[in-house]
């Protein structure tokens, strides 16, 4: 008995040590990105870059937080890009059909939340289905519905105040940046300070043990996927506001960018591991990296290759370190 307690403590310290180091690696990479950007472009290092530029890449970052929960559960959700498109398209169509804008925005969030809830419900109800297949199906269906509604057209003409979401500033800080910080704090508390967060980690490590220890695992899965859909709706609001109009093909590939950010942030796809700081750093690493390469006017394919290489290198580092720790645990 006392043996087991000792083992538990040892393990705890190992994990902490590991994450501490991983986040420092990310901080190092971020500083390196900033240094390289400053070197290759005289226009990079200034106040605007750090305060205003994030507004250009933060729209998809809202999904990063719930996606973290999904990955910690050792699952994945590739339907979020389509959810963004569907909720944006329905919002625009409803507004143009006469619904007042605040209600249309509420409808956007509702549709997105339902989209996520459907994923969650399918996974809970039909446990034999793989989460990849379920979210792949809804990814196709949601975008398909968006195309059925709008065809090949764009819809917009929103009221002037709606552009505030994507373009507005409070004391020179973009509103979207402040919203991102607030969301980060909320999800950070949810993940690290609540029983719900602990349940998510527990299920990621061992779903069966969680079930036997009285965690309502079905409700946790359902809630996490619904949150993922809901935050895709938030992304839809900000993206549509920045663009001033929307189309069924918006946010194509967002799911992959989001998953890339979460993975670079040190959240393991095999579940149970992750801290809120990693993905936040990853959002800024990828954001500033592509922004800096843009300032240097590099061709688009080069940007893709560099980000891809960064991702694979980070995942490999992570994998090897993770395996070494796991081995220690299993020998104990």
């Amino acid at each position, binding site marked *: 008995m006392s043996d087991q307690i000792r083992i538990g403590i040892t393990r705890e310290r190992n994990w902490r040590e590991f994450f501490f180091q991983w986040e420092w690696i990310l901080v190092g990479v971020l500083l390196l990105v900033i240094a390289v950007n400053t070197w290759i472009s005289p226009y990079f290092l200034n106040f605007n870059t750090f305060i205003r530029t994030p507004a250009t890449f933060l729209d998809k970052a809202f999904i990063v937080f719930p996606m973290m929960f999904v990955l910690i559960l050792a699952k994945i959700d590739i339907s979020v890009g389509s959810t963004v498109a569907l909720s944006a398209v329905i919002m625009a169509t409803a507004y143009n059909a006469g619904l007042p804008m605040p209600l249309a925005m509420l409808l956007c969030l509702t549709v997105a939340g339902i989209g996520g809830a459907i994923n969650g419900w399918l996974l809970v109800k039909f446990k034999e289905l793989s989460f990849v297949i379920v979210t792949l199906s809804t990814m196709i269906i949601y975008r398909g519905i968006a195309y059925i509604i709008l065809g090949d057209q764009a819809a917009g003409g929103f009221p002037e105040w709606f552009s505030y979401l994507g373009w507005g500033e409070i004391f020179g800080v973009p509103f979207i940046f402040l919203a991102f910080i607030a969301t980060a704090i909320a999800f950070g508390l949810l993940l690290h300070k609540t029983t719900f967060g602990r349940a998510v980690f527990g299920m990621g490590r061992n779903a069966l043990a969680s079930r036997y220890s009285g965690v309502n695992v079905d409700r946790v899965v359902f809630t996490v996927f619904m949150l993922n859909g809901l935050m895709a709706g938030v992304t839809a609001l900000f993206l549509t506001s920045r663009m*001033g109009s929307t189309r069924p093909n918006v946010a194509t590939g967002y799911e992959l960018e989001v998953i890339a950010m979460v993975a670079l942030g040190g959240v393991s796809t095999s579940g149970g591991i992750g801290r809120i700081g990693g993905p936040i750093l990853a959002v800024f690493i990828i954001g500033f990296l592509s922004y800096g390469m843009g300032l240097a006017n*590099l061709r688009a*394919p080069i940007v893709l290759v560099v980000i891809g290489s960064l991702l694979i290198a980070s995942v490999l*580092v992570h994998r090897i370190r993770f395996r070494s720790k796991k081995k220690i645990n299993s020998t104990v």
Partner: protein
Amino acid sequence: MRKVVISLLIVMLAMAPAAVLFASGSGEQDGAERHAFVFKNTGNPYGDKQMEGFEEGIVEQGGEAILRAPDQPTAEAQIQIVDQLVAQQVASISITGNDFDALEPVLSRAMDGGISVLSADSAVNPDSRMVHINQADSEMIGRTLIQAAYDMADGAGDIAILSATSQASNQNLWIEWMRTELEENPDKYADLELVRVAYGDDLRDKSVSETEALLQSYPDLEVIIAPTTVGIAAAGRVITDRDLIGEVYVTGLGLPSEMAEYIQNGATPYMFLWNPIDVGYLTAYAATALTSGDITGAVGETFSAGRLGEFEIVESGDGGTQVLLGAPFRFDPDNIDEWKDVY
């Protein structure tokens, strides 16, 4: 051993951003005025030619040209590029819009910052530009293409349009004029039916599958009009591969270098285009005329465009102003050989 691998990977991690340094090549020239051109997407030969012409026009005036294109033909990708250009304080931004309205917030911000903004080839709305550089009169392009289809179909049968993206404003305007031509001459076109407008998004694979879908759905299809260089080449390829030469004809707007094969084998009896190099070149001169204050983008102003001569700003159909390059040029088996090596 593991430690070696880990440190190796960490070095790789660090190298990724550093690799940018080497890829970025030479730095910018000091003092030269910098003019940017943003095309719809990468991998489009027509766009490459436009950018080539733009660079030629800017460089011969002593400026520096920045050529950009996103990897996806979307407005959101172009918004990010424009943001980056504004941060670099370029003198002018010329853009081939992926969306008529969606670029307005970012482009008006650029203009507020003192940057001259103009659209070329595919327009953005009049509030987000100072002037639009148009290849040729849109009405003439639209009407000419329907007359060509009428001629190829011998006056009867189904015709379809294979366009770029559904938001491409230049293609949409031409399609509008094609419909007008059909509606205004109901007697002449009584037996000609426009069955569908398909969108290949200026992506080669999607254009090919949209063409296949058209052939499948409309067995009586006589002519495919593709008012985009990517679409017409894809349609020409499908018709040739499927052995449908002589049964289904392809016409529209194409690059002579890409279309020579299909013009010679009969898949495309003839087609049209202006010189995309000249579009870029004219845009370059309009951009410098705007930044120097010689013109403001108002109707009636004139400016000189190097080897192309004098141009006047005229009213355009969307409520803004534009500059017209000239009439579209017809390519057929008699002249394709002399043009296919030019562009």
